[in-house]
């Protein structure tokens, strides 16, 4: 049981456990009205007409693309060559490009009435040809490095639907393949699924007295303020974005959505009236960003000793109907191509990635961005290589892992891996799983009969806390490397932290309070952390890319250290002591070697804020420090997952017997929270590997539009994970490595690897659903019920 008597009680817990959380959907304001979006039932169609007469008669306000102010569009910008910029209107204009796209917005006094009125909106559509797949439909083969498909374009600007194409290249791939002892080839397809936070998207917008206030479940309030200003025709300074308690994000809420823009435009058109939108689950499945709809055609070359000498191939990422704001259609393909080779040493690499538009919901960030798919692809190549060479899959990996002697290791895509602790993680994972015992049981069942057991492995590097250099790849018109943090001592001696990051469950109120309490020298209970409000917090990019502990933690530490220095300097003058002899412990000022405190922080703070008569020469009033931090590069976190699964020949069902995950999280600030992050991300990874799949039919209708069809794992499907750590401090103020996403990276690879281990057959398509596994077992001729 993971309880830690020394762990501080999370600052978030009491309000969340007593029903006093403050979520956007809880917000009630005077004169508030409620919004329902009318969504397209067609995947691709021209909008012939929108008749709103019945809706207006029902007492509703209606907005369409014709409404004043709605002529603007979201446009995700990037200077990357090979990127085609496209527009996404707040409400569909002329055309709809996916089933679920918002065509009109209806405002009424409550949500029941708004939904009634929305049914009165009559839209006449002229259907167009629909493109669902990013590769198979009408696609010709890859010829001469180029790839073409003939389609009805989703956007006129991209006649072949390719919104982004880029080739990563290093070394001499073809020569290495020619010289190789073996070259293995895999064609793999991964399954579209999404973050599905239990709180869907929600927003309340109010335009009053020339100022727009937007309460939103966003992970990126300052970016939203910046991006939305021009679009709503206001100065950025006239906009306040507030992200209060948010019920899960996972990347899905790190996006500026057309609904967000529409809501702000509606508010601007209705001054003084707050407008509120809370999506339901069906809307979320239909229209929030999804991810991981990829195809891989890859080859890996090995020498006779098992050394990986080349990887080459092609990737297709289905980016859906629009280029997601602000990360662009490149978010998945660039991450996929940039990090495919993971923790393995490699000189020769050539991979062409494509982001292909289709008539499906837009693809965007989801915890792990692309890497749950690329780790699966890479580990499949290694398992095939081991089979071709007759080597043990773990031995083959050990030969190729980046080691301590190799770091800093420059990957073939020029990212620099700074960890190298993969072997150590693998050792610990083998110990925890008791690999020898599982192998013995596997052999016994093979001899004596019984359900097959397979052992699966995944090794990965999680790029976290990306600084300005590491975040430069997508060439967007901003760099997300820095965060601001203000640490202030109030006149009563209590400490307030204003951080630029946000939290959707990660416990940042607690973790940052621990960091600051420790650095300043006050009690944890005397520190309050605030974030998510652009009017309170100086600057921040928010929550994504496992950056909060590294960057916001770093900024908090720098600010707190400086503040402590200021406090001690002032105390030395006030109490006529030598600053070098002074210590600040638990809010008390102490002199080294003396049993009693000579003063306390509240007294120093009172002097600083209220009693300028006590301030010595050279001291300004106020105890308040703001610092920025940018790690410039980033911190890689090593991770290994090892699991034993059992296959049911009758049903194709998979039972997880044991699942071990060992990561290098760097220095751990709060073990309970880190454990929770790892376990939670593992569960999401297992969901994506085994159950979750957003399926479209050939007309572009989502056929998994409820949680009865889209299977999110429950407590009955998820096992107890055994989580271990190696703590190797990273080179940043706290020595931490991000830990939020790693768990999602392994499960698909682990499951495929375990099936390969159990049956000797390759799982080329995800999820590992019972029907697919059952078919593989037939192919492997594993007996079951007839």
């Amino acid at each position: 049981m993971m309880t830690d008597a020394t762990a501080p009680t999370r600052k978030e817990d009491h309000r969340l456990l007593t029903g006093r959380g403050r979520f956007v959907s809880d917000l009630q304001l005077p004169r508030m009205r409620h919004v329902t979006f009318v969504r397209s039932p067609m995947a691709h169609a021209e909008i012939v007409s929108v008749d709103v007469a019945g809706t207006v008669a029902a007492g509703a306000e209606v907005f369409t693309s014709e409404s004043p102010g709605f002529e603007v569009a979201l446009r995700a910008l990037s200077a990357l060559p090979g990127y085609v910029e496209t527009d996404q209107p707040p409400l569909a204009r002329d055309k709809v490009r996916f089933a679920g796209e918002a065509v009109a917005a209806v405002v009424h006094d409550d949500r029941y009435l708004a939904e009634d009125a929305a049914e009165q909106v009559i839209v006449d559509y002229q259907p167009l040809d629909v493109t669902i797949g990013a590769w198979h439909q009408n696609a010709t083969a890859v010829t001469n490095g180029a790839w073409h498909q003939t389609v009805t374009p989703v956007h006129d600007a991209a006649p072949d639907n390719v919104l982004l194409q880029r080739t990563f290249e290093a070394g001499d791939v073809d020569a290495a393949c020619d010289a190789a002892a073996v070259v293995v080839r895999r064609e793999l397809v991964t399954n579209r699924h999404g973050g599905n936070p239990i709180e869907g998207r929600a927003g309340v917008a109010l335009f009053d007295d020339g100022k727009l206030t937007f309460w939103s479940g966003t992970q990126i309030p300052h970016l939203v303020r910046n991006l939305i200003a021009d679009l709503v025709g206001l100065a950025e300074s006239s906009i306040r974005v507030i992200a209060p308690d948010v019920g899960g994000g996972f990347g899905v809420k790190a996006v500026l959505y057309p609904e967000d823009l529409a809501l702000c435009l509606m508010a601007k058109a209705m001054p003084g009236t707050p407008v509120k939108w809370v999506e339901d689950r069906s809307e979320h499945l239909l229209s929030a960003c999804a991810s991981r709809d990829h195809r891989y055609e890859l080859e890996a070359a090995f020498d006779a000793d098992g050394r990986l000498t080349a990887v080459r191939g092609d990737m297709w990422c289905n980016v859906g109907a629009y280029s997601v704001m602000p990360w662009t259609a490149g978010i998945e393909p660039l991450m996929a191509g940039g990090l495919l080779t993971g923790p393995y040493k490699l000189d020769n690499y050539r991979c062409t990635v494509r982001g292909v538009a289709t008539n499906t919901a837009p693809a965007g960030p989801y915890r792990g961005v692309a890497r749950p798919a690329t780790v699966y692809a890479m580990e499949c190549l290694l398992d095939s290589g081991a089979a071709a060479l007759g080597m043990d899959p773990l031995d083959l990996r050990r030969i190729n892992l980046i080691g301590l002697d190799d770091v800093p290791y420059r990957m073939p895509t020029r990212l620099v891996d700074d960890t190298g602790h993969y072997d150590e993680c693998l050792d610990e994972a083998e110990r925890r799983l008791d690999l020898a015992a599982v192998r013995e049981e596997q052999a016994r069942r093979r001899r004596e009969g019984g359900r097959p057991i397979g052992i699966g492995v995944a090794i990965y590097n999680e790029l976290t806390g990306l600084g300005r250099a590491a975040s430069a790849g997508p060439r967007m018109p901003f760099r997300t490397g820095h965060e601001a943090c203000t640490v202030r001592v109030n006149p009563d001696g209590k400490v307030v932290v204003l951080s630029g990051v946000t939290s959707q469950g990660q416990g940042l109120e607690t973790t940052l309070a621990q960091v600051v309490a420790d650095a300043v020298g006050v009690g944890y209970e005397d520190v309050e952390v605030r974030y998510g409000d652009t009017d309170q917090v100086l600057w921040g990019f928010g929550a994504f890319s496992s950056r909060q502990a590294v960057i916001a933690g770093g900024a908090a530490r720098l600010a707190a250290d400086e503040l402590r220095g200021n406090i001690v300097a002032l105390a030395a003058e006030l109490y006529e002591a030598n600053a070098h002899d002074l210590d600040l412990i638990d809010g008390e000022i102490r002199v080294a070697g003396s049993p009693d405190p000579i003063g306390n922080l509240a007294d120093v703070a009172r002097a600083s804020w209220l009693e300028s008569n006590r301030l010595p020469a050279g001291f300004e009033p106020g105890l308040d420090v703001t610092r920025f931090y940018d790690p410039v590069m980033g911190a890689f976190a090593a991770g290994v997952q090892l699991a034993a699964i059992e296959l049911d020949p009758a049903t194709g069902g998979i039972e997880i017997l044991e699942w071990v995950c060992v990561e290098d999280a760097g220095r751990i600030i709060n073990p309970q929270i880190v454990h929770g992050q790892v376990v939670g991300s593992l569960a999401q990874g297992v969901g994506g590997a085994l159950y979750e799949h957003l399926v479209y039919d050939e007309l572009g209708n989502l056929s998994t539009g409820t949680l009865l069809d889209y299977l999110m794992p429950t407590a009955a499907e998820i096992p107890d994970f055994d989580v271990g750590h190696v703590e190797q401090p990273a080179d940043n103020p706290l020595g931490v490595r991000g830990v939020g996403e790693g768990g999602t990276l392994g499960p698909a690879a682990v499951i495929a690897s375990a099936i390969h281990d159990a049956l000797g057959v390759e799982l080329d398509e995800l999820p590992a659903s019972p029907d697919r596994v059952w078919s593989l077992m037939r192919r492997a001729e594993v007996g079951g019920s007839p």
Partner: protein
Amino acid sequence: MRDVELAVNGRVRALRVDDRHTLADALREQLGLTGTHLGCEHGVCGACTVLVDGEPVRSCLMFAAQAVDAEITTIEGLAQPDGTLHPVQQAFSDCHGLQCGFCTPGFVLTAVHLVETHVVDAAAGPLDRDAIRHELSGNICRCTGYQGIVDAVERAVEIRLR
């Protein structure tokens, strides 16, 4: 519209509801009890679970008018007025059984029912982790991976049986 009286957290509240108003919406919108959360609005995720006469019920699938004459307990009704947490709430905090907290009210109320039922049926045998996982499988959590929640229920049972 009809006038109804609902007994919520030990207090009788008068309100006017449309026949189609769900219990969840009445609790949230009319009584300001926003601790009851809506995660799917089609009865799968369990976030909106409340206790109706002690039994867990999805308040998104029950009409407010159906809850007349019943005792309703929401998440706001568990802690003491001075803020002291119910043992199940305390166990969730101790075991890190919540992260974002959005599914938490539904899980806590489901767990309260589970723990209390088990205490009555303690002779039926121990409530092991597999049984807890099975019992909680009507609620979805996206953050915790369930391990902390199962820990919390185990702990709450232990404390309750002490």
